[in-house]
């Protein structure tokens, strides 16, 4: 569980994250949604300590996240996996080396143990015949899978995904979403996902936080989001014709 209390973050005196509080539950896929530029990535980077917050506090399992406390932070870091918006694979390493990398850094396993563990997660994310390819030689959807595999190879307790299905076709997008959801339940981890894709919201939105210009204006579940009267949410949800039709159909019933 991750608890966020009143955090704010500014760049050049412009508030990008404005007094956000939230709780991200264990064993659930927690979504941060909002338009492009609403501050999702910045919020996630604050949670991860990649950006320093100006105010507020972040608690991992009740313990304060303190970037400068070397002993607790390095322990916590090993429990965190992250899938970046652009996958962020190390392009000087093969796919297999990318996935082994966290093991190489933080475990005392032998080479063959590491390769076995890597093969396990490679199977888990349904990757085939790419071990010795380089990130530039595989498709975007495969890169996401590799990034997920790298993020879960150390059995994390917390998984962060920044738009895991952006740039993918709708079918692959849903497969990736479902994969993340399955992993979340299987390993009982706290998963936080940034997205602006309504399909993902409906598919895996156990818990949703809605951001507008860095402010949290709503929270709820994927069933509640269709029924709310809030104008800004409706503008977001029903910006696609498809969901307008769903809404109409629901009203008729």
């Amino acid at each position, binding site marked *: 569980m991750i608890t966020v209390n009143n955090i704010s973050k500014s760049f050049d005196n412009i508030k990008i994250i404005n007094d956000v509080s939230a709780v991200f539950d264990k064993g659930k896929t927690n979504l941060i949604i909002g338009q492009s530029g609403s501050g999702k990535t910045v919020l996630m980077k604050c949670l991860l300590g990649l950006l320093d917050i100006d105010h507020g506090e972040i608690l991992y399992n009740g313990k304060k996240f303190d970037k400068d406390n070397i002993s607790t932070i390095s322990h916590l*870091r090993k429990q965190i996996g992250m899938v970046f918006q652009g996958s*962020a694979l190390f392009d000087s390493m093969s796919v297999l080396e990318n996935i082994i990398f966290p093991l190489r*850094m933080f475990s005392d396993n032998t080479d063959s143990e590491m390769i076995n563990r890597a093969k396990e997660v490679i199977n888990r994310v349904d990757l085939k015949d790419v071990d010795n390819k380089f990130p530039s030689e595989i498709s975007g959807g495969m890169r996401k899978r590799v990034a997920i595999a790298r993020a879960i190879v150390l059995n994390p307790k917390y998984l962060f995904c920044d738009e895991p299905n952006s740039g993918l076709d709708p079918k692959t997008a849903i497969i990736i979403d479902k994969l993340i959801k399955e992993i979340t339940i299987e390993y009982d981890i706290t998963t936080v996902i940034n997205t602006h894709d309504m399909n993902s919201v409906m598919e895996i939105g156990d818990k949703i936080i809605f951001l507008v210009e860095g402010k949290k204006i709503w929270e709820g579940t994927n069933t509640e989001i269709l029924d709310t009267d809030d104008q800004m949410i409706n503008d977001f949800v029903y910006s696609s014709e498809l969901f307008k039709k769903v809404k109409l159909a629901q009203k008729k019933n």
Partner: protein
Amino acid sequence: MKFFFHIGRYFLMIKYTFTKFTKWSVLKKLIFQEIDDLILGSIGIVAFMSFLIGGVVAIQTALAIENPFLPGNLIGFATRQSVILEFAPTLISIIMAGKVGSFITSSIGTMRVTEQIDALEVMGINSFNYLIFPKIISLLLYPFLITLAMFLGILGGYVASVYAGFSTSFDFIQGIQLDFQVFHIVYTYSKTMLFAFVLATIPAYHGFYMRGGALEVGKASNISFVWTSSVIIILNFIVTQLLLA
């Protein structure tokens, strides 16, 4: 003000580089990789440039002193002095600021814009140590390149002046051996080490703290070259003032 901000951040970067070390087994591989990229990969251009520059220096000297009253070994002597004191350490370093420097800036900068550095940080890896330390260590071999440049520079001078008939082989070699001062070697290798550190760290700084996308990586490499070569020239002036003047 901006200038002092950068200076401060540069020195902080160097401090972070020497804290929280990456696992040795991993670091070792990275160091060998950097030696391959930065040092071995530069031998060709350094050899080619220094040989030709040495030749030009010898010819220029010969043309400037076409006077029968000056001793014949002067060409060899002047070539040796210019190559060892200036052309090998300083000019080659400027060339390396273009070659090695822009390579460092663009490789670190690409890692920055594609969030690979963030990925390292999230895993709890000190990205400063992971990325910059191996470069600094591999550039400890930089004096090897400069020694090669000195040797080939003088050889180039010999070939040019003897084959073009400006000097005899005997005179030239006698010139090279004339009035040899150990302190000049101390001076030239001191500045070589200083330049090596500059070559590793200033381009790394520009890559590390860049923002934007692919286009900005190119711009950062340009700015990095301007700064690295300027700092080398300025340090060259200061060190020469301190040690030789």
